[in-house]
């Protein structure tokens, strides 16, 4: 599931950097690429089949990308997922939803951003909410992640018409109007990658 995200970020990192140039310093794509390479390496070197431990290692690797706020934010997402995961090596749908909710909680501790602030939260909050709802409806994991990916995509799209209110981009004011927030797009790519990865490896 995780490695699907690596692929999609790799394919899209130039676009992410370009989006970042409208409000930031144009390096979001390279930062995400570095974070995802670290993620891939940590998955490859992990000796544990336990989801909790693997996600903890992934979180630390993503934070080690030294990418300004991006590392701590995306790292916190995986750290929270690790905290919320059970001790086992597989997941059921309810556990999956709890795990993603714990991930979102952990990110919320790092930022005051809400939906509408033109940040990663515009994609992450609806995606995680959708996971819970789809899980409650009894869908299977690939279907749940598909709903999440759609919600994240719509959330990322919605940032086009927003003005940033937080972080470094705040000071860029109008420049980013008409362009999506690169962090929100990254979140949507990661959820789409989770979906694709889940279809490939069955969970």
């Amino acid at each position, binding site marked *: 599931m995780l490695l699907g995200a690596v692929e999609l970020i790799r394919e899209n990192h130039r676009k992410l950097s370009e989006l970042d140039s409208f409000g930031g310093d*144009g390096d979001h794509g390279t930062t995400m690429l*570095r974070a995802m390479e670290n993620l891939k390496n940590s998955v490859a070197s992990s000796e544990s089949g336990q989801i909790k431990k693997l996600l903890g290692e992934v979180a630390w690797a993503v*934070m080690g990308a*030294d990418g*300004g706020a*991006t*590392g*701590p934010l995306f790292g916190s997402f995986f750290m929270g997922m690790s905290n919320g995961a059970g001790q086992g090596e597989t997941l059921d749908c309810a556990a999956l939803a709890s795990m993603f909710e714990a991930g979102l909680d952990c990110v919320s501790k790092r930022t005051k951003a809400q939906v509408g602030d033109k940040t990663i939260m515009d994609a992450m909050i609806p995606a995680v909410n959708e996971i819970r709802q789809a899980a409650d409806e009894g869908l299977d994991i690939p279907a749940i992640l598909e709903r999440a990916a759609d919600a994240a995509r719509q959330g990322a799209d919605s940032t086009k018409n927003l003005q940033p209110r937080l*972080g470094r981009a705040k000071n860029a004011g109008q420049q980013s109007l008409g362009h999506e927030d690169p962090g929100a797009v990254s979140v949507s790519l990661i959820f789409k990658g989770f979906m694709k990865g889940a279809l490939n490896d069955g969970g």
Partner: protein
Amino acid sequence: MTMKKFLNDPSDLVGELLSGFALAHADKVKLTENNLVVRAEPKAKNKVALVTLGGSGHEPALSGYVGQGMLDISVPGEIFAAPGPPKLIEALRMANRPAGVLLIVLNHAGDVMSANMAMEMAEQEGLNVRQILTHEDISTGPRDKPEERRGLVGCLAVIKVAGAAAEQGASLDKCWEIADRMERNMATLAVAVTSAAHPCTGEAISEIPETDMIIGMGQHGESGSAQTELKTADETAEIMLNMLIVDLSVKKGDDILLMINGVGSTTLMEQYVVLNSCKKILDSKKINMVRCTAGEFLTVQEMGGFQMFMARMDSELAELWDAPCKCPCMAT
């Protein structure tokens, strides 16, 4: 505009620049295995250690201030991007001692997030660390909303006075008090005239019209508050000084430290001209410029412009500012 920089593979850039930096200043600093910049000769363990973190691409900041009377460890990040919590907690563990560690953090989203996470871990591990946040950019928020103010070159003054106090054997609480007093009495305003290219992407980090200047532009090209046509050194100094004086409520007879920090392509010649303008204006206002300096302390690649830093000084802060230091990129 095509970027013209002497570089190799951008993904190796930070490692290469740190290796070269350590070679150039081998008598004062060295690199750890994980690219932390530490003193060549460690400070005595019974004295407070100073640690800071920050993105690269701003040389000589911040690693240029590792050395006697200044920092113990600098934790460099990627270009314009803060290091993550893993490197910072490693530095805090390395610096930890009974005397304590003072962590100096510039107010930028990434730096603050990394610092907060590392501080939580430090607390769990029982490390003896206190944190000071520098946020003195008057263009991004009012004085009563410090969380909106960015950390600019003022971190250098905080490092200088707190580092001097630590070297003299002051306690962690005393070092923090000194750092906090400096921080509360300082203000910075930046002006930019030309942009810089991000060394990894080659793209300009901001847009500045050919004939204009922007007062209040941040050190990553973040937009500023006032765009006007380019003015003379005297006129620019007058505008900026007045804003700093108002912000700090500096009055006739006050003692101040003034620092002109060239951010890249504004020449030292211009910096001296501006400093001279400042002196004339301050004299006319009967404000005592008791200390001053000009130079490149915290840069933004080849961006044109400077940061004007002002701090209200008392005799203790002035003494600590004058105390000897031995680091790669500053001498007093």
